[in-house]
Structures are given as C-alpha cells and as structure tokens.
C-alpha cells in the first residue's frame, strides 16, 4: 500500500474551504447552551442595580417558594466557599487590588454585580424568581471617571483606601534603550515642533455573538464543565485553585464557541457559581446569560485617557514621545486587566525609529464593569495615539501624512531593528506595503478630488485617513511574561497521533472560536507529513483530549500553537525513520522523507508513513529497543514576538451640514509574513476592520451619572450591521518572519489595531481646513457636527451645542450612510460626566 496523493503541491498557502463549516452551516453546532442533561437545573442571577452600595439584607424567602425553585443563594451563603477570583498579572510588585468575589457579600462595586443566585427546574422559572429576591442596599457615592478616580476623592472600594492600583513607568533613558525624552521635548519647544494632545479611548464591549454559557455536571468521578470560553485550560486550573477541587478531578470542555475577541479570555464569576450550585445540588446545572447581562457584566475593553507629547524637528523628524496614561480598570482586576495598557506600552513607537520615549501608566479603579482583553488589547490604543499624532505632525508642518511617516519609519534594510521600547522587530517592509496600498487606493486621485471639493466649498467634504502600524503578536515568550509579572507561561502544546489505518489526529492546546484551526492545522500537517488534508483530524478544546495548552488570544495560535504542531509532526517523522529503515533493511541515514514516504536514496524502495504506522500498530517487527509508537508531543515556547505590519488608507465623505460620515473606500495592505490559508487571513482582516472602524464611528459603552450602563442592549450598543460598512479592498505583501520556521506572523488583531486611527484621521482630514483637529470617538454625526460648530470656521454659539449630549446614539443608518441631526438633546441616552468630551473639543 502506498499513500495516494490527491492534494495540491503545497497545502500551506492554499485557500482551503474550512472543515469547520459543515456543522456550522447546517445547524449541528455544539454550543454550550444546547446541552441538555438528565435532571439538569438552571441558574439565573440577581444583579445589583447600583454601582456602589452596601448590601444591608437579602431576603430570599419569596423566591424560594416560587414554583420550580430548588435553591437560592445570597453572597453571605457562599462567602466562605467561593474563594476569590484571580488576577494573574501584577505589573508592579506592590499592585493594589480589591478582593474579587464571584458573588457580592457586603458591598457591590459596579452595577451588574451578582448578589444572589437562583437555581430552578427551568430557565424561565429561575428568571421569574429573580424578581422575588428582595435586596436592601445603602447607596454609596460611585466614582465613574478614571481621571477623577486618580485623585482618590471618592473611593471605588472604601476598604482599599485608594483607587490607584498601580503606576507603571517605562523610560528609554533609564532602560538604556534610548535617550531622555524631557531633553527632546525641551529642544523641540525652542527650535522644533511639539504636538500635545489628550486623546480618549472610549470604553468598548467585546460583544461576541454567542452569550456566555456554562454547564456543569457534578455526577461523575470528574466534575465536567462545558463553558463558552477562549481558555478552557485556564478555567480548569482556576477552578482548582479558587475552589480547592483537585485539578485531576476537573474536565473542562469548550465546545463550539461563538466568538470571543478577548471577551472570553476570562475566568468568570458565573463559572464559579455554576460549579458551586451544581455541587450543592448534586445535579447538572446550566447558566446562560442574557445579552443585557453580557453587555453589563462580561468584561469591557479599552477605556483610557492618553496625554501625549510628541517632539519633532522642523523637518519632521520625530525626536521623542512622552505619554501619561490613565487606564480604567473598572471595579476589579480580572485575569489580565492590569496588563492591558502595558501590552500597548511597548508599541507607542509604532513603525518609527525615534530615540526618546517615556510612558507613565496609572491604573485606577472605578465603579464600572471591569475591563480586560478586547481585540488588540493595548495595541489599538497605542497605534491610535501614534498614528493620530503623526497626522497632526504632518498637518502642523504642511506635508503629506504619508511623507511624514516615510521620513520616520524603519527602512526594510534596517531589520532586525531594536526599538526605543527595547523590542527587536524581526522583519518588515513598510515601503512596499505603503506603495501597494497607495496604488490600490488611488491616493493621488483622491487627494485631487479632495482639493476640488474644498475649493468648490462642497458641503460634503472628502477626508483621507492614513494608518501605518505594527504590533507585537504571538503571546508570548514565557521568559518575557515572567519578567513583566505574569504568573503563567506563553508556550503552546501539540500532539500528533498516527492511527493504524494511516489517518492522523492532531491535538492542539489552542482553543479556536471562529479562527479555523481545524483547517489551518490540517494544512500544516498535510504538508509536513505528506498526508491528505482530509485524513487529518484536529482535536481541541477539551482538557481530557488536549490536556496541555494555553489556549487562544493575542494572535498567538498560529505563531505559537502552529509551531508546536509543526514540531510534533517533525518528531513523528524522526520516530518513524529508524522503524522504516529497519523494515526496508536500510541505513536510516540513507532514507529521504518526501511527500509522505520514506525512500531509500538511489532506489525505488520505500514505505509510506501510513505503512509505517500500521507496522508500528502490529509491532511484529520493530528494531530492538524501539517503542512501538509514532505518537509525538511538542511544546513550543517562542524566543520572541513577531511583528506583522500594514498600511491602511481610508476615504470618508463627511456632510458638514449634518455631521454624517460615510465610508467611501477602505483599502489596506497587510503583511503577516507567510500565509497558511489566504481565505482565513482575509476573513480575519475583514472582521478586524469592522471592529476597529466601529470603535471610530459607532461603539461606546456609556454609563449615566449613577453608574448604570445605558448601552445595555443591542438597541443602544451599536454593533455595526452590513448596512453600516462597505466592502473592503484588502491585499498583502509577504515579508516572512525570521522568528519561526513557517515565517508566519499573527493576523487576528491586525485589522482592529490599524483601522481605528485610519478612520478618525480621515474624518479629521475632511474637516481640517475648517479648523478641526480632533474628534472624540465614536465620531457620531452629533460629535462631528459639534466639532464643526466649535471650530475656528464654525460660527456657533454655545447654545448650538447643548452640553452633555455628545454621546447621542444614532440609529445604525443615520450614523453612517445618511447622517442626521436628529439627535436632539434627550433623544438618546446621555453621556455621564465620565464620558463627556472633557477638554478635547
């Protein structure tokens, strides 16, 4: 028997249609909420309506007598056994953090915090009983604005004594990676250019489409937990650590998971409470959140103030960047909350090679949902800041924004390049990506049109936005993580099982939730082992099947997990070689492995890998002292990050009479190194663009003055629809990474990181001749219109711009395609003081 080859010459690089699709397009998907187990009970949560309050009493008696209710727990009932939720990253040794309960016992610190748990026969009966729990609160003043929180005038946690969790500083002169930023600023102040801005990164909500769901079956020897998570391996470890259950007694399964975007990179109160309830009941329990609960209490993202000072020469050469960040943690520290701004802290230099850098980040607590990873996690914030500043510098000097970037970026022949933040960029070619984008976009023609419209005084003005970016991706070298205060590692694991019939099982420690690992890993293994794509099965997301793994986030799956898969495949070949040689009666060194077959050099003799697998299964004729197995494991720990990059160009039409913004053209060229599956890569870019564009134009989590989330449903939290977005023009350059054997870089976050500044730069560019030099995100029609009214060219009086209505929430349509002035004061939920435009107008 020989292996028949019915596959392209190279699987890697082919636009394979996904293996995952069949079950997803036919409705056979295994979402956690689909699970029904015998005798299963259902949970519903009672949540605090107050942002900050003392719980004075919880009366559960009426709820307990409600039909179908099996149990009701208050925080006091579970105070002893619930433990404390973990934060896994201390960015400084003496980081301050409140104890983080799954269910509030004495006080609540954000609206949406769980105060009681109902367990009932059906989900409907559980929800009915929620209304019957009588909780008495004494309200405390909430602190909602992060900059106000930093003063400690009002405390988010009275017992903590401060709102400041940590102050983290990086200084290039101190670190030895560059020179003194104060010197650069002082030089620029006298003989150069200084750009000073305070930018706002609004609070966002990951808004994965599948609400989180947990099923716990306590009836077996092992506690089995199905959960809609990105991180089943984390969940297993933390159930063990938090609840004191031996890890070996826990099995966690992430079945099909409907999106994550960082929002399911968490160990949640709901997971803890479902485990506790199931163990008490001795029966399976399920909890599925409503969308409103998800928006209110699943972690949020972004929420920073960025005070920025960029120093440059009059010729446009950047000489230094100083940053003061205030990052809003919300009420608690989740898994990696405190490190999110720090993941961006190493990227504010972007693709540029200026010599001096200083960043001070102040992490503060407020009485809002806690923040944590959201697609890009720190890097979109950094990219936004530097790319907005580069446009402002270009405007200040009256040069083209592409020209100012070219003057400052790292040239392709300067790689590897050690940055002012102390990171070594592997490879890149910013010139090539930018030129390709410029051509595809029709940059010069659009600039000409922009001039024509300006000269004609067209009420609809054209703006062109530029964003060039790079990101550190592939979280992460374990040693680096350790040096930054993270408790875990950053390696990834894979194993390959060679089945007797010549089929292959690939077990990966990554945990996909839409990324297509089953397809991409099959392509990698098909090439390496020379096996047909369809003969390879990729298994994941179950700690019993894939016992070792660190899961999926941070654009790590391919560049870390994919390398483990590759290494495991290589080990299979090396284990098979002496066995094949023995069977062929040849010297192992005389064997060549190609296209799935060991051939004896210079002869026709050979054996397929499948044949070796069968011989190993029989084990009748093994070389002496050789174990009869080809199965192999590999754990890959990256030496460094990889640095994808790209150039994104965006054209918007802004109606100066209504403030309406219409995306006319979005063109990007991304360089993610070599590509395993171009179809999947493009899809990742498309989705990333949508989320980044949406930050620029639509999305914001808004709290009112009392700390109630007013964007608590999809009516108010504007996830864009198809009608809000254009088709994208995407293409690639390919500069292989030098840090991994496939030459690949991450792609999951690229689109999100690059697109936000491209869009805002475009909107500002459309209005710059009117004197507008910033608009706070999201650039709603009302904010755009207000910016025009307040600009030097606007003739508005304060009465034209009612204060406090800046976060007016237009309908999907109005926001992008038509524009609208219909957001009269009071029509939409109003921004709380924390979300107003501050001093930025």
């Amino acid at each position, binding site marked *: 028997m020989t292996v028949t080859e019915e596959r392209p010459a190279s699987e890697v690089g082919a636009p394979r249609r996904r293996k995952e699709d069949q079950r997803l397009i036919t409705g056979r998907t295994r979402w956690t*909420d689909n699970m029904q187990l015998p005798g299963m009970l259902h949970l519903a949560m009672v949540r605090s309506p107050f942002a900050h309050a003392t719980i004075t009493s919880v009366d559960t008696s009426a709820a307990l007598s409600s039909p179908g209710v099996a149990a009701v727990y208050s925080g006091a009932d579970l105070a002893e056994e619930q433990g404390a939720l973990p934060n896994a990253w201390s960015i400084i040794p003496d980081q301050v953090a409140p104890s983080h309960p799954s269910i509030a016992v004495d006080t609540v610190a954000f609206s949406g915090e769980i105060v009681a748990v109902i367990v009932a026969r059906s989900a409907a009966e559980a929800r009915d009983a929620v209304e019957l729990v009588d909780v008495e609160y004494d309200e405390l003043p909430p602190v909602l604005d992060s900059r106000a929180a930093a003063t400690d005038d009002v405390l988010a946690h009275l017992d903590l004594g401060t709102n400041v969790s940590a102050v983290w500083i990086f200084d290039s002169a101190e670190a030895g990676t560059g020179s003194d930023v104060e010197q650069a600023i002082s030089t620029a102040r006298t003989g150069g250019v200084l750009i000073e801005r305070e930018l706002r990164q609004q609070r966002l909500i990951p808004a994965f489409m*599948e609400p989180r769901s947990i099923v716990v079956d306590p009836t077996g020897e092992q506690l089995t937990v199905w959960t809609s998570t990105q991180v089943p391996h984390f969940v297993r470890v933390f159930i063990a650590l938090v609840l004191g259950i031996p890890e070996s007694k826990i099995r966690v399964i992430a079945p099909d998971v*409907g*999106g994550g975007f960082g929002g399911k990179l968490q160990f949640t109160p709901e997971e803890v409470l479902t485990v506790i309830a199931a163990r008490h009941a001795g029966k399976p329990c399920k909890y599925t959140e409503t969308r409103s609960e998800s928006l209110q209490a699943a972690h949020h993202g972004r929420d920073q103030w960025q005070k920025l000072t960029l120093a440059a020469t009059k010729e446009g050469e950047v000489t230094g960047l100083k940053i003061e960040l205030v990052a809003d943690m919300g009420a608690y520290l989740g898994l990696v909350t405190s490190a999110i701004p720090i993941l961006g802290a190493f990227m504010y230099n972007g693709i540029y090679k200026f010599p001096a850098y200083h960043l001070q980040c102040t992490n503060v607590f407020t009485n809002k949902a806690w923040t944590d990873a959201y697609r890009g996690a720190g890097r979109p914030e950094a990219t936004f800041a530097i790319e907005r500043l580069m446009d402002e510098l270009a405007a200040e000097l009256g040069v083209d924004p592409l020209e100012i970037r070219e003057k400052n970026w790292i040239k392709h022949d300067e790689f590897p390049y050690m940055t002012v933040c102390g990171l070594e960029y592997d490879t890149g070619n910013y010139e090539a990506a930018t030129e390709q984008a410029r051509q595809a976009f029709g940059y010069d023609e659009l600039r000409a049109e922009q001039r024509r419209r300006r000269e004609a005084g067209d009420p609809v003005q054209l703006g062109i936005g530029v964003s060039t970016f790079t990101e550190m991706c592939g979280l992460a070298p374990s040693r680096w993580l350790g040096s930054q205060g993270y408790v875990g590692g950053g390696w990834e694991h894979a194993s390959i099982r060679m089945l007797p019939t010549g089929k292959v099982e690939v077990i990966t420690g990554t945990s996909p939730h839409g990324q297509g690992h089953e397809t991409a890993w099959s392509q990698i293994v098909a090439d390496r082992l020379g096996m047909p794509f369809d003969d390879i099965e990729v298994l994941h997301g179950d700690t019993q099947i894939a016992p070792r793994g660190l899961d999926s986030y941070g654009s790590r799956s391919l560049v870390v997990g994919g390398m483990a898969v590759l290494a495991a495949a290589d080990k299979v070949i090396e284990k098979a070689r002496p066995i094949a040689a023995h069977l062929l009666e040849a010297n192992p060194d005389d064997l060549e492995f190609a296209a799935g077959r060991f051939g004896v050099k210079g002869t026709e003799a050979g054996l397929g890998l499948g044949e070796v697998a069968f011989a190993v299964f029989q084990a009748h004729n093994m070389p002496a002292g050789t174990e009869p197995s080809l199965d192999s494991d590999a754990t890959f720990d990256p030496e460094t990050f990889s640095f994808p990059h790209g150039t994104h160009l965006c054209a918007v039409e802004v109606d100066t009479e209504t403030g309406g913004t219409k995306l006319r053209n979005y063109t990007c060229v991304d360089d993610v190194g070599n590509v395993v599956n171009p179809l999947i890569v493009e*899809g990742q870019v498309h989705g990333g663009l949508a989320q980044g564009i949406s930050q620029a134009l639509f999305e914001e989590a808004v709290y009112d003055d009392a700390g109630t989330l007013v964007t608590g*449903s999809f009516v108010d939290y504007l996830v864009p*629809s198809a009608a809000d977005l254009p088709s994208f023009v995407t293409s690639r350059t390919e500069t292989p990474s030098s840090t991994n054997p496939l030459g690949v870089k991450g792609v999951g976050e690229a689109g999100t990181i690059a697109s936000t500044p491209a869009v805002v730069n475009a909107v500002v560019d459309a209005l710059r001749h009117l004197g507008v030099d910033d608009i706070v995100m999201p650039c709603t029609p009302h904010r755009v219109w207000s910016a025009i009214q307040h600009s030097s060219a606007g003739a508005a009086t304060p009465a034209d711009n009612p204060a406090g209505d800046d976060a007016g929430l237009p309908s999907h349509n109005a926001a992008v395609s038509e524009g609208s002035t219909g957001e009269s004061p009071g029509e939409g939920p109003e921004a709380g003081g924390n979300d107003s435009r501050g001093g930025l107008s």
Partner: protein
Amino acid sequence: MTRISVTVDGTSYQDEVEPRMLLVHYLRERLGKTGTVVGCDTSNCGACTVHLDSKSVKSCTVFAVQADGRDVTTIEGLAHDGELHPMQQAFHENHALQCGFCTPGMIMQSIDLLRENPSPTEHEVREGLEGNLCRCTGYHNIVKAVMSLGEGASV
C-alpha cells in the same frame, strides 16, 4: 397551556405550550432544534431567524402559539439528503462565516432576501441583512456569498 399544531422542517408536531413561550424556545427546548440560536433580548441580532410560511421572521419575536397551523423551516431543514441548500454552499465557498453563531439566522435571512429580490445590488444586500448582526466577518464575505447567488451573478 395552549395546544398548537405546527410543521417544522417537514415534520408535524402537536404540543401543549405556555402562551408566553417564544417560538425560538419551542424550537430549541421542545423540539431540540438547537441550530436556531438566541443572541440578544431585543430582536436586534437576528441569530434566531427562521422561515414562517417561507418568509423570514425572528423567532424570538414570535410566540409559539402564533405558529399554530403554520409551516416553519429552520437551518436544519434546508439541506436534503446530504445536499446543501445553495445558500449554505455559498457561505462555505465564500468563507462567509467564522464562529458561525450568526450563520443560521444569516443564511435564513439571505434566502428570504433573494426570494424577495432575486438580483439585488450590493447596497440592497447590505440593507436586506441589516437586521442580522455578525461580529466576526465584517460582512464582506457574507455579502459576497449572497451576491454570488443573485440572478446575473457570474458563476
């Protein structure tokens, strides 16, 4: 409890249901039709879209009793004898799904869109899918998939 008689994916059912029971909960919890999912509480996301007498509805805004005497098709009733519906095939071919949670609703809405307008422009496709949210794809490939089945689309 109210007695209803309803045909779902070609099979007739008679059931007693609470008047407040939503069609989506009837499909999921009583019939095990878990291909149809719930993504929001406010009829914004469209993940629960099914066909009621061949027209798309959000099954979270229809009571089960309103389906009495009517014909429901879910994502699970589209493929016949292992043969995918052309829209399912188009979604696969065009990589129009990633996590797949919105996909059942998106496919059902796309079929209805083409039933109403067999040769839509891109703009019409985008407007026609406005009630269905996707967080993964940026809609680019979804629109492409639907356009690929429009009359006059180059195959």
